[in-house]
Protein backbone atom coordinates (compact mmCIF):
# COMPACT_ATOMS: atom_id res chain seq x y z
CA UNK A 1 0.00 0.00 0.00
CA UNK A 2 1.53 3.30 -0.93
CA UNK A 3 -1.01 5.51 0.81
CA UNK A 4 -1.83 7.47 -2.29
CA UNK A 5 -4.78 7.22 -4.60
CA UNK A 6 -4.40 6.23 -8.21
CA UNK A 7 -5.76 9.02 -10.39
CA UNK A 8 -8.04 6.60 -12.26
CA UNK A 9 -9.58 5.49 -8.98
CA UNK A 10 -9.99 9.03 -7.76
CA UNK A 11 -11.64 10.26 -10.96
CA UNK A 12 -15.20 9.38 -9.95
CA UNK A 13 -14.77 11.12 -6.59
CA UNK A 14 -13.08 14.14 -8.11
CA UNK A 15 -16.19 14.78 -10.19
CA UNK A 16 -18.64 14.17 -7.37
CA UNK A 17 -21.61 16.51 -7.63
CA UNK A 18 -21.78 19.12 -4.94
CA UNK A 19 -18.12 18.81 -3.99
CA UNK A 20 -16.63 22.22 -3.36
CA UNK A 21 -12.97 23.21 -3.12
CA UNK A 22 -9.84 21.20 -3.66
CA UNK A 23 -10.13 19.14 -0.50
CA UNK A 24 -13.72 18.17 -1.21
CA UNK A 25 -12.80 17.26 -4.81
CA UNK A 26 -9.92 15.14 -3.60
CA UNK A 27 -11.88 13.32 -0.93
CA UNK A 28 -15.05 12.48 -2.81
CA UNK A 29 -18.14 12.33 -0.63
CA UNK A 30 -16.31 12.69 2.66
CA UNK A 31 -17.97 15.59 4.46
CA UNK A 32 -16.18 16.40 7.74
CA UNK A 33 -19.22 17.93 9.49
CA UNK A 34 -21.48 14.98 8.73
CA UNK A 35 -18.69 12.59 9.68
CA UNK A 36 -18.14 14.26 13.07
CA UNK A 37 -21.87 14.41 13.80
CA UNK A 38 -22.48 10.71 13.08
CA UNK A 39 -19.19 9.76 14.78
CA UNK A 40 -20.00 11.48 18.09
CA UNK A 41 -23.62 10.30 18.04
CA UNK A 42 -22.55 6.68 17.46
CA UNK A 43 -19.92 7.02 20.17
CA UNK A 44 -22.52 8.27 22.62
CA UNK A 45 -24.98 5.49 21.76
CA UNK A 46 -22.22 2.87 21.89
CA UNK A 47 -21.07 3.84 25.38
CA UNK A 48 -24.64 4.30 26.59
CA UNK A 49 -25.41 0.73 25.47
CA UNK A 50 -22.20 -0.57 27.04
CA UNK A 51 -23.48 0.41 30.48
CA UNK A 52 -26.83 -1.35 30.16
CA UNK A 53 -27.11 -4.45 32.41
CA UNK A 54 -27.55 -6.98 29.58
CA UNK A 55 -24.52 -5.70 27.64
CA UNK A 56 -22.50 -5.71 30.88
CA UNK A 57 -23.17 -9.46 31.15
CA UNK A 58 -21.88 -10.02 27.59
CA UNK A 59 -18.97 -7.69 28.33
CA UNK A 60 -17.93 -9.72 31.38
CA UNK A 61 -18.20 -13.00 29.46
CA UNK A 62 -16.08 -11.54 26.65
CA UNK A 63 -13.43 -10.49 29.20
CA UNK A 64 -13.24 -14.08 30.48
CA UNK A 65 -12.73 -15.35 26.90
CA UNK A 66 -9.89 -12.87 26.40
CA UNK A 67 -8.26 -13.95 29.66
CA UNK A 68 -8.54 -17.59 28.54
CA UNK A 69 -6.81 -16.73 25.23
CA UNK A 70 -4.12 -14.73 27.07
CA UNK A 71 -3.56 -17.68 29.40
CA UNK A 72 -3.21 -20.00 26.40
CA UNK A 73 -0.69 -17.61 24.81
CA UNK A 74 1.42 -17.48 27.99
CA UNK A 75 1.36 -21.24 28.50
CA UNK A 76 1.95 -21.85 24.79
CA UNK A 77 5.07 -19.67 24.94
CA UNK A 78 6.38 -21.60 27.96
CA UNK A 79 5.27 -19.16 30.66
CA UNK A 80 3.43 -19.89 33.89
CA UNK A 81 0.08 -18.43 34.90
CA UNK A 82 -3.06 -19.51 36.68
CA UNK A 83 -6.50 -18.43 35.44
CA UNK A 84 -9.23 -17.47 37.93
CA UNK A 85 -12.37 -16.18 36.23
CA UNK A 86 -11.37 -12.94 34.53
CA UNK A 87 -8.02 -12.81 36.33
CA UNK A 88 -4.55 -14.14 35.64
CA UNK A 89 -2.31 -14.93 38.61
CA UNK A 90 1.25 -16.03 39.07
CA UNK A 91 1.43 -19.69 40.24
CA UNK A 92 2.42 -18.55 43.76
CA UNK A 93 -0.42 -16.04 43.81
CA UNK A 94 1.97 -13.13 44.54
CA UNK A 95 0.61 -11.08 41.67
CA UNK A 96 -2.59 -11.08 39.70
CA UNK A 97 -4.19 -8.94 37.04
CA UNK A 98 -7.92 -8.86 36.41
CA UNK A 99 -9.56 -7.82 33.17
CA UNK A 100 -12.21 -5.32 34.22
CA UNK A 101 -14.47 -2.90 32.36
CA UNK A 102 -12.51 -0.96 29.79
CA UNK A 103 -9.63 -3.44 29.75
CA UNK A 104 -11.14 -5.71 27.13
CA UNK A 105 -10.76 -3.32 24.21
CA UNK A 106 -14.52 -2.87 23.81
CA UNK A 107 -14.14 0.89 24.25
CA UNK A 108 -11.70 1.23 21.33
CA UNK A 109 -13.85 -1.15 19.29
CA UNK A 110 -16.78 1.23 19.85
CA UNK A 111 -14.48 4.03 18.69
CA UNK A 112 -13.62 2.13 15.49
CA UNK A 113 -17.25 1.17 14.92
CA UNK A 114 -18.33 4.81 15.25
CA UNK A 115 -15.67 6.02 12.83
CA UNK A 116 -16.46 3.32 10.25
CA UNK A 117 -20.18 3.93 10.60
CA UNK A 118 -19.71 7.66 10.06
CA UNK A 119 -17.70 7.20 6.87
CA UNK A 120 -19.61 6.97 3.57
CA UNK A 121 -19.19 3.38 2.36
CA UNK A 122 -21.37 0.37 1.62
CA UNK A 123 -22.47 -1.83 4.54
CA UNK A 124 -20.52 -4.79 3.15
CA UNK A 125 -17.30 -2.76 3.15
CA UNK A 126 -18.09 -1.41 6.61
CA UNK A 127 -18.65 -4.90 8.01
CA UNK A 128 -15.36 -6.10 6.47
CA UNK A 129 -13.53 -3.16 8.06
CA UNK A 130 -15.17 -3.70 11.39
CA UNK A 131 -14.39 -7.41 11.44
CA UNK A 132 -10.74 -6.98 10.40
CA UNK A 133 -10.29 -3.97 12.70
CA UNK A 134 -11.80 -5.76 15.70
CA UNK A 135 -9.51 -8.74 15.15
CA UNK A 136 -6.44 -6.48 14.98
CA UNK A 137 -7.49 -4.49 18.06
CA UNK A 138 -8.29 -7.58 20.10
CA UNK A 139 -5.03 -9.24 19.02
CA UNK A 140 -3.18 -6.18 20.24
CA UNK A 141 -5.24 -6.12 23.42
CA UNK A 142 -4.09 -9.66 24.23
CA UNK A 143 -0.46 -8.53 23.73
CA UNK A 144 -1.26 -5.65 26.09
CA UNK A 145 -2.79 -7.90 28.75
CA UNK A 146 0.07 -10.41 28.63
CA UNK A 147 2.66 -7.61 28.78
CA UNK A 148 0.88 -6.06 31.78
CA UNK A 149 0.92 -9.44 33.53
CA UNK A 150 4.72 -9.48 33.29
CA UNK A 151 5.28 -5.74 33.87
CA UNK A 152 3.26 -5.97 37.10
CA UNK A 153 5.51 -8.72 38.43
CA UNK A 154 8.51 -6.50 37.77
CA UNK A 155 7.29 -3.11 39.05
CA UNK A 156 3.91 -1.78 40.19
CA UNK A 157 4.89 1.77 39.29
CA UNK A 158 5.62 0.70 35.71
CA UNK A 159 2.40 -1.30 35.73
CA UNK A 160 0.34 1.77 36.70
CA UNK A 161 2.00 3.81 33.99
CA UNK A 162 1.64 1.17 31.26
CA UNK A 163 -1.87 0.10 32.28
CA UNK A 164 -3.50 3.45 32.91
CA UNK A 165 -1.91 5.59 30.27
CA UNK A 166 0.60 4.23 27.76
CA UNK A 167 -1.24 1.15 26.50
CA UNK A 168 -4.53 3.04 26.49
CA UNK A 169 -3.13 5.66 24.13
CA UNK A 170 -1.28 3.13 22.00
CA UNK A 171 -4.57 1.27 21.49
CA UNK A 172 -6.35 4.46 20.42
CA UNK A 173 -3.46 5.27 18.09
CA UNK A 174 -3.69 1.81 16.56
CA UNK A 175 -7.44 2.16 16.17
CA UNK A 176 -6.88 5.45 14.38
CA UNK A 177 -4.36 3.88 12.00
CA UNK A 178 -6.63 0.85 11.40
CA UNK A 179 -9.42 3.27 10.48
CA UNK A 180 -7.14 5.24 8.15
CA UNK A 181 -5.93 2.07 6.43
CA UNK A 182 -9.56 1.02 5.96
CA UNK A 183 -10.51 4.43 4.51
CA UNK A 184 -7.54 4.29 2.19
CA UNK A 185 -8.64 0.85 1.06
CA UNK A 186 -12.19 2.14 0.52
CA UNK A 187 -10.89 4.92 -1.74
CA UNK A 188 -8.47 2.69 -3.62
CA UNK A 189 -11.09 0.04 -4.26
CA UNK A 190 -13.60 2.69 -5.32
CA UNK A 191 -16.04 1.48 -2.66
CA UNK A 192 -16.84 4.92 -1.25
CA UNK A 193 -20.57 5.29 -1.28
CA UNK A 194 -22.73 8.17 -2.40
CA UNK A 195 -25.28 7.17 0.20
CA UNK A 196 -25.53 8.97 3.49
CA UNK A 197 -24.14 6.93 6.38
Amino acid at each position, binding site marked *: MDGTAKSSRGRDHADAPGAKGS*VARATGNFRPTRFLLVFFLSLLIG*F*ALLFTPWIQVVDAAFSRVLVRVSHAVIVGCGGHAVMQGAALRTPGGAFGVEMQD*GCNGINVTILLFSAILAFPASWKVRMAGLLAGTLIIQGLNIVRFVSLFYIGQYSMSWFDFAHG*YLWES*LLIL*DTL*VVFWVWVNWVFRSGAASNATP
Partner: protein
Amino acid sequence: MPRHSPHVNFLVRASAALILLSAVWWFILLDPLVSGLREITKFVGNLVFERASCELVRETAAGNWDVCVPIDGVHASRKSIEFELARSGPIAFTFGLPVCLAMLLAAPQSRRAWRTLVTGTSVTALLETLLLSLFLVTYAHAVEAQPDLARNAAKKWFFDVAQYLELNVGPALAPFLVAVWLNRDLLWHALGRGEMIERERDKRGTSSKRRRRIAVAKPDTV
Protein backbone atom coordinates in the same frame (compact mmCIF):
# COMPACT_ATOMS: atom_id res chain seq x y z
CA MET B 1 15.51 -1.24 1.67
CA PRO B 2 11.79 -2.04 1.70
CA ARG B 3 9.40 0.90 1.28
CA HIS B 4 6.81 0.99 4.05
CA SER B 5 3.37 2.49 3.71
CA PRO B 6 2.87 6.00 5.14
CA HIS B 7 0.44 4.49 7.68
CA VAL B 8 3.07 2.10 9.02
CA ASN B 9 5.65 4.89 9.06
CA PHE B 10 3.28 7.14 10.97
CA LEU B 11 2.33 4.37 13.39
CA VAL B 12 6.00 3.63 14.17
CA ARG B 13 6.88 7.34 14.54
CA ALA B 14 3.83 8.12 16.68
CA SER B 15 4.28 5.03 18.90
CA ALA B 16 7.95 5.88 19.49
CA ALA B 17 7.12 9.52 20.26
CA LEU B 18 4.27 8.44 22.52
CA ILE B 19 6.45 6.05 24.52
CA LEU B 20 9.22 8.64 24.87
CA LEU B 21 7.02 11.62 25.74
CA SER B 22 4.76 9.69 28.09
CA ALA B 23 7.84 8.44 29.97
CA VAL B 24 9.05 12.06 30.29
CA TRP B 25 5.54 13.02 31.44
CA TRP B 26 5.33 10.21 34.02
CA PHE B 27 8.79 10.65 35.54
CA ILE B 28 9.39 14.40 35.22
CA LEU B 29 6.34 16.47 34.31
CA LEU B 30 3.59 14.79 36.30
CA ASP B 31 3.85 16.73 39.58
CA PRO B 32 4.12 20.21 38.04
CA LEU B 33 1.30 19.44 35.60
CA VAL B 34 -1.04 18.18 38.33
CA SER B 35 -0.23 21.26 40.45
CA GLY B 36 -0.85 23.50 37.45
CA LEU B 37 -4.13 21.74 36.70
CA ARG B 38 -5.21 22.19 40.32
CA GLU B 39 -4.58 25.95 40.16
CA ILE B 40 -6.34 26.33 36.80
CA THR B 41 -9.30 24.28 38.05
CA LYS B 42 -9.50 26.49 41.14
CA PHE B 43 -9.42 29.56 38.90
CA VAL B 44 -12.17 28.20 36.62
CA GLY B 45 -14.19 27.12 39.67
CA ASN B 46 -13.93 30.58 41.19
CA LEU B 47 -15.15 32.10 37.93
CA VAL B 48 -18.13 29.73 37.74
CA PHE B 49 -19.03 29.72 41.44
CA GLU B 50 -18.50 33.33 42.43
CA ARG B 51 -19.69 32.93 46.02
CA ALA B 52 -18.16 29.60 46.96
CA SER B 53 -18.58 28.87 50.66
CA CYS B 54 -15.56 26.54 50.75
CA GLU B 55 -12.16 26.08 49.15
CA LEU B 56 -12.88 24.43 45.80
CA VAL B 57 -9.80 22.20 45.50
CA ARG B 58 -7.29 21.29 48.22
CA GLU B 59 -4.53 18.70 48.04
CA THR B 60 -4.34 16.15 50.87
CA ALA B 61 -1.13 14.79 52.34
CA ALA B 62 -1.57 11.64 50.25
CA GLY B 63 -1.72 13.71 47.08
CA ASN B 64 -5.47 13.22 46.58
CA TRP B 65 -7.79 16.14 45.97
CA ASP B 66 -10.37 17.36 48.46
CA VAL B 67 -13.01 18.83 46.20
CA CYS B 68 -15.87 21.10 47.22
CA VAL B 69 -18.55 21.86 44.62
CA PRO B 70 -21.20 24.48 45.51
CA ILE B 71 -24.53 23.02 44.51
CA ASP B 72 -28.16 24.09 44.70
CA GLY B 73 -29.54 20.73 45.57
CA VAL B 74 -32.83 19.41 46.85
CA HIS B 75 -31.46 19.39 50.37
CA ALA B 76 -31.98 22.89 51.69
CA SER B 77 -29.47 22.41 54.47
CA ARG B 78 -26.66 21.50 52.04
CA LYS B 79 -24.94 24.24 50.08
CA SER B 80 -22.00 22.26 48.75
CA ILE B 81 -20.86 18.71 48.11
CA GLU B 82 -17.44 17.64 49.33
CA PHE B 83 -15.60 14.52 48.27
CA GLU B 84 -12.08 13.17 47.98
CA LEU B 85 -10.81 12.43 44.49
CA ALA B 86 -7.96 9.91 44.13
CA ARG B 87 -4.79 11.34 42.57
CA SER B 88 -5.25 9.10 39.54
CA GLY B 89 -8.33 11.19 38.65
CA PRO B 90 -6.60 14.50 37.91
CA ILE B 91 -3.57 12.66 36.47
CA ALA B 92 -5.79 11.32 33.67
CA PHE B 93 -6.51 14.91 32.65
CA THR B 94 -2.83 15.79 32.20
CA PHE B 95 -1.95 12.87 29.93
CA GLY B 96 -3.46 14.61 26.90
CA LEU B 97 -0.42 16.86 26.55
CA PRO B 98 2.22 14.19 25.76
CA VAL B 99 -0.28 12.39 23.52
CA CYS B 100 -1.11 15.49 21.49
CA LEU B 101 2.57 16.45 21.17
CA ALA B 102 3.52 12.91 20.11
CA MET B 103 0.86 12.91 17.40
CA LEU B 104 1.88 16.33 16.10
CA LEU B 105 5.60 15.48 16.14
CA ALA B 106 4.94 12.25 14.24
CA ALA B 107 2.80 14.00 11.62
CA PRO B 108 4.16 15.34 8.32
CA GLN B 109 5.93 18.54 9.31
CA SER B 110 5.04 21.92 7.94
CA ARG B 111 7.02 25.14 8.17
CA ARG B 112 4.75 26.33 10.98
CA ALA B 113 5.23 23.21 13.10
CA TRP B 114 6.17 25.13 16.25
CA ARG B 115 2.98 27.19 16.02
CA THR B 116 0.93 23.99 15.71
CA LEU B 117 2.70 22.53 18.74
CA VAL B 118 1.95 25.62 20.84
CA THR B 119 -1.68 25.73 19.69
CA GLY B 120 -2.07 21.98 20.26
CA THR B 121 -0.69 22.26 23.78
CA SER B 122 -2.97 25.21 24.62
CA VAL B 123 -6.15 23.71 23.12
CA THR B 124 -5.54 20.32 24.75
CA ALA B 125 -4.88 21.93 28.14
CA LEU B 126 -8.06 23.99 27.81
CA LEU B 127 -10.17 20.98 26.79
CA GLU B 128 -8.78 18.80 29.57
CA THR B 129 -9.47 21.53 32.17
CA LEU B 130 -13.04 21.89 30.93
CA LEU B 131 -13.54 18.11 30.98
CA LEU B 132 -12.17 17.91 34.52
CA SER B 133 -14.46 20.73 35.70
CA LEU B 134 -17.42 19.01 34.04
CA PHE B 135 -16.47 15.69 35.64
CA LEU B 136 -16.22 17.27 39.12
CA VAL B 137 -19.67 18.82 38.79
CA THR B 138 -21.17 15.53 37.50
CA TYR B 139 -19.47 13.61 40.31
CA ALA B 140 -20.83 16.07 42.88
CA HIS B 141 -24.35 15.59 41.51
CA ALA B 142 -23.84 11.81 41.61
CA VAL B 143 -22.79 12.08 45.27
CA GLU B 144 -25.83 14.21 46.00
CA ALA B 145 -28.11 11.71 44.26
CA GLN B 146 -26.47 8.76 46.04
CA PRO B 147 -29.55 7.81 48.13
CA ASP B 148 -31.69 7.59 44.96
CA LEU B 149 -29.20 5.64 42.87
CA ALA B 150 -29.86 2.30 44.56
CA ARG B 151 -33.58 2.57 43.73
CA ASN B 152 -33.43 4.37 40.39
CA ALA B 153 -31.54 2.22 37.85
CA ALA B 154 -31.97 4.75 35.03
CA LYS B 155 -30.42 7.52 37.12
CA LYS B 156 -27.51 5.29 38.10
CA TRP B 157 -26.99 4.32 34.45
CA PHE B 158 -26.99 7.99 33.43
CA PHE B 159 -24.34 8.94 35.99
CA ASP B 160 -22.23 5.87 35.12
CA VAL B 161 -22.23 6.77 31.41
CA ALA B 162 -21.63 10.48 32.04
CA GLN B 163 -18.71 9.87 34.39
CA TYR B 164 -17.17 7.26 32.07
CA LEU B 165 -17.37 9.64 29.12
CA GLU B 166 -15.91 12.54 31.11
CA LEU B 167 -13.19 10.63 32.93
CA ASN B 168 -12.15 7.93 30.45
CA VAL B 169 -13.32 8.70 26.93
CA GLY B 170 -13.01 12.49 26.73
CA PRO B 171 -9.47 12.95 28.10
CA ALA B 172 -8.16 10.00 26.07
CA LEU B 173 -9.77 11.02 22.79
CA ALA B 174 -9.36 14.81 22.98
CA PRO B 175 -5.59 15.00 22.19
CA PHE B 176 -6.01 12.80 19.09
CA LEU B 177 -8.87 14.92 17.78
CA VAL B 178 -6.96 18.14 18.49
CA ALA B 179 -3.87 16.83 16.66
CA VAL B 180 -5.85 15.76 13.60
CA TRP B 181 -7.81 19.02 13.60
CA LEU B 182 -4.63 21.12 13.79
CA ASN B 183 -2.61 19.18 11.25
CA ARG B 184 -4.84 18.82 8.20
CA ASP B 185 -1.95 17.33 6.21
CA LEU B 186 -1.96 14.46 8.69
CA LEU B 187 -5.64 13.85 8.06
CA TRP B 188 -5.52 13.99 4.27
CA HIS B 189 -2.32 11.97 3.97
CA ALA B 190 -3.74 9.41 6.36
CA LEU B 191 -6.87 9.20 4.27
CA GLY B 192 -4.65 8.37 1.30
CA ARG B 193 -5.47 11.64 -0.43
CA GLY B 194 -2.03 13.19 0.00
CA GLU B 195 -1.03 12.88 -3.65
CA MET B 196 -4.25 14.48 -4.84
CA ILE B 197 -4.04 17.28 -2.31
CA GLU B 198 -0.46 18.03 -3.35
CA ARG B 199 -1.47 18.01 -7.00
CA GLU B 200 -4.27 20.47 -6.19
CA ARG B 201 -1.82 22.64 -4.24
CA ASP B 202 0.70 22.55 -7.10
CA LYS B 203 -2.06 23.58 -9.48
CA ARG B 204 -3.09 26.41 -7.18
CA GLY B 205 0.55 27.36 -6.62
CA THR B 206 1.21 27.48 -10.37
CA SER B 207 -1.85 29.59 -11.09
CA SER B 208 -1.12 32.00 -8.23
CA LYS B 209 2.51 32.33 -9.44
CA ARG B 210 1.15 33.03 -12.89
CA ARG B 211 -1.21 35.64 -11.45
CA ARG B 212 1.70 37.22 -9.57
CA ARG B 213 3.78 37.29 -12.75
CA ILE B 214 0.94 38.99 -14.58
CA ALA B 215 0.51 41.47 -11.71
CA VAL B 216 4.22 42.27 -11.75
CA ALA B 217 4.29 42.43 -15.51
CA LYS B 218 1.32 44.81 -15.75
CA PRO B 219 3.01 48.01 -14.52
CA ASP B 220 5.86 47.45 -17.00
CA THR B 221 3.51 47.04 -19.88
CA VAL B 222 1.32 49.99 -19.02
